[in-house]
């Protein structure tokens, strides 16, 4: 069983930024991602109480390092200043590398 090294990008942000993130992914030709609602705490305060609009969402994208770095750059530029958001990368191994380009 051969495994391939790729990267996993995790974006945790306020739910109202979800659309912006998905648009950026779309622009970069990414069609695979996983997302789910989470609560959280950070520099923009506790999130996840009260209205649905005040929840966070976590979006995970597996792809190549190069592609993900482009995406991280665009997210940084367009969303970091106005939204509650963090992003991080980590290493994962997958079976079908062609699925995650």
């Amino acid at each position, binding site marked *: 069983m051969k495994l391939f090294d790729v990267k996993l990008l995790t974006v945790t942000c306020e739910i*109202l930024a979800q659309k912006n993130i998905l648009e950026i992914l779309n622009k970069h030709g990414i069609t695979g991602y996983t997302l789910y609602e989470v609560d959280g705490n950070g520099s923009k305060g506790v999130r996840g*109480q*009260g*209205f649905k*609009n005040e929840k966070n969402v976590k979006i995970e994208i597996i792809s190549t390092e190069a592609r993900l770095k482009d995406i991280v750059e665009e997210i940084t*530029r367009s969303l970091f200043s*106005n*939204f509650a958001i963090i992003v991080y990368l980590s290493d994962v191994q997958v079976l079908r590398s062609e699925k995650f380009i």
Partner: protein
Amino acid sequence: MDILGLIQANILTPVILFFILGIVAARIKSDLKMPDAISEFLPIYLLAAIGLHGGLEMRNTGFSDMLIPMLIAIGLSLVFTLNHYQILRRLGKFNIFDSYALASTYGAVGAVTFSVGLSFLKNQGVESEGYLAAILAVLEPVSFILAIFLTNMAVSKQIQSKKQSLPEGTLDNNEKEIVEQNKTNLSKVLHESITGKAIVILLGGIAIGYLIGDKGFDSISIVFDELFTGAIAIFLLEMGIIAGQRLDDIKKVGVFLVTFSILLPTFNGIIGVLVATALGLSLGGAVMFGLLMASASFIAAPAVLRHAIPQAKPSLYITSALGITFPYNIIILLPIMFTISSMLHNLETPINLFNYLEINLL
């Protein structure tokens, strides 16, 4: 009944008491809260019920007399939004983004406030014009669209003037992108506002109510009419909890905004009652019209503004709209407007007076 007596009686209704219970629960840091699914479902339910009710009424009364009040409501809403902006920007010294965001939050309408208004009137045994639900739907996006348009204009102008003071061709990509983005923003926001769930369910409800009529409504009236007040009570428990959690933030919004959050709704609301009475709306209709003018948006506002004016701080507009204006409106301003409307309608309607005499003479 005098205003104070009416306020007191209003406080002692289940809807207001559940709201207060929610605030208390939040203040003593209780873990009481509604499951998310319930707090998401209830506004949909309330809007459907408001819409159905409005549609039924409009089927009975026609909607020919709706046009003038609606146009005037739109006009007032736009004028108020501009007025808010001037006050916030000049007197309050807020930046452009916060000023426009707040201006439109208060220019917009609050569907929950509207529900509470309906249950208040029900309690007073007074009816209101069915087409007000349609005005609620139409007013939803109007104020946001104006604010977003003006924000985009302002940003473009800033960039333009910066560009002119520089040698040609140095407008960097970043700025081009901002201009570009603002344009797409406006069209996106327009689409999102009009297809937003609140408007869709409200207009849908109105259409369904209009089409089915009282007979068709019979089979669902227990769900969409009889459960209405109880559902509002449950929803206001949750609203109280959320408002209570935000009370600490009131210190952060500052004295100016707190004052604004009470005075402006009062001003807008009373103007609304006067105008509506002049337009010939009923006692209850004038109160609801005033409430439309007085209410601020706190569910729809963040969804629209985070995309359209992301630079504005949501803590400002949510806290003032939900933490200050909403409780003030439903507890104090509603009885005030009701009293004013009652006075106006007694003055203006000699027939009432006539009835009164007649009854006393017999």
